[in-house]
């Protein structure tokens, strides 16, 4: 039933791209294609092309007039006086659960519970061995749910994390299969101008949703920190990964 044999991806990368856009691929297959796209820009081009073509599939449906309350609610929502907060409720449930390990200066740690990620642990051996891959397709489109914006490999051999961005610009970090030794943490940062802003500690497993939206071109950094995260407002350990969220 579970078809996770990545070798089953078609040799024709263009068709694999189509299957990726449609959402037919399993997680492992999708990851394999994303890694292929790192070294083969034609895969990224194929993905864009299929995204355009397949969006036209929606035009094969007979139009159906929505109930009037849809517009009424929208109209109310976008009125300046009644404009709602930008927070989108469905994502709140994806926030990480653990309690903060320590208080942090609010000015720098303005991502709330995000800074309370339970530590992923890493040994010193990882620090010098970093490989970052940025996929050349857009951050707002993709398979049925999200678009991979970056694949992070700590040892240069396998993917440890994916950064996925949903169509509304919110990002998740997905632990693929990280092998993180003890006594240290990896902390994820972005830059607000020249100021580092923590996005939290990389998780040992699971998927974690960032409250903060990432815009195309956003600078991403990962630093090695003591267990529990940086004791300062910015990175204190070596930067083990850096790059930009891909610009479409």
């Amino acid at each position, binding site marked *: 039933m579970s078809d996770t044999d990545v070798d089953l991806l078609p040799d024709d990368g263009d*068709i694999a791209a189509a299957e990726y856009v449609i959402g037919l691929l399993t997680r492992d297959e999708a990851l394999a294609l994303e890694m292929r796209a790192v070294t083969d820009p034609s895969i990224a081009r194929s993905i864009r092309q299929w995204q355009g073509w397949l969006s036209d599939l929606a035009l094969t*449906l*007979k139009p159906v007039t929505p109930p009037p309350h*849809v517009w009424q609610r929208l*109209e109310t929502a976008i009125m300046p006086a009644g404009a709602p907060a930008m927070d*989108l409720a469905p994502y709140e449930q994806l926030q990480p659960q653990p309690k903060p390990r320590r208080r942090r200066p609010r000015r720098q740690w303005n991502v709330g519970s995000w800074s309370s990620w339970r530590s992923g642990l890493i040994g010193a051996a990882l620090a010098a061995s970093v490989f970052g891959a940025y996929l050349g397709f857009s951050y*707002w489109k993709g398979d049925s749910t999200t678009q991979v914006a970056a694949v992070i490999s700590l040892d240069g051999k396998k993917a440890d994390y994916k950064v996925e961005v949903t169509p509304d610009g919110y990002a998740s970090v997905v632990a693929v299969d990280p092998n993180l030794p003890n006594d240290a943490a990896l902390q994820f940062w972005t830059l607000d101008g020249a100021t580092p802003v923590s996005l939290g500690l990389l998780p040992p497993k699971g998927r974690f949703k960032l409250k903060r939206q990432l815009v195309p071109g956003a600078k991403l950094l990962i630093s090695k920190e003591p267990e529990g995260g940086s004791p300062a407002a910015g990175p204190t350990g070596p930067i083990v990964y850096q790059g930009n969220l891909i610009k479409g």
Partner: protein
Amino acid sequence: MDIGHGQTHQDEIATLLARCALADSEAFRRLYERVNSRLYAVALAITKDPALAADALHDALLQIYQHAGRYRSEIGSGWTWVVSIVRYRALDAVARAGREVPGVEITEVPDNQDDPLEPIATASEIRQMFRCMARLEDHPRRLVKMAYLGGMTHAELAVHVGHPLGSTKSVIRRALMRLRDCMGGRR
């Protein structure tokens, strides 16, 4: 009036999105008029539930208005952008509602190439998509639509239609190759 489609209209969607990025509520109203029934059809096809579809449409359009500045025309058409958000929202709504197998009975929503009230295509590429889909046999065409609108993997699709995984993959891949050839795709 609904979206008329074609490059002119897609450019219009992009233009309206640019105005929405400046918090132009009139542009948003116009955008809504252009796309609402097309997008609701997508949400309905995915959710099979009018209430879920309406909520998904509302949430998606609010996102579109609030994040219109994120759209960039060099990446794709305005239509591709808005429909991708609605599709995502609808699939997300289905997932949150705990529905396991979306996409059932999609063929009950008929193709509208014969709908005289909806002159679909003025743009050659969209006309071409209709022609190319029409050239597929019923079964592969249905599989492609179910996959795209149902968010199903190969394996889920195979279970759903009761065919072996291998043959389901083969059918879809052949269909995609035919679509690509027909669309004048690359390579």
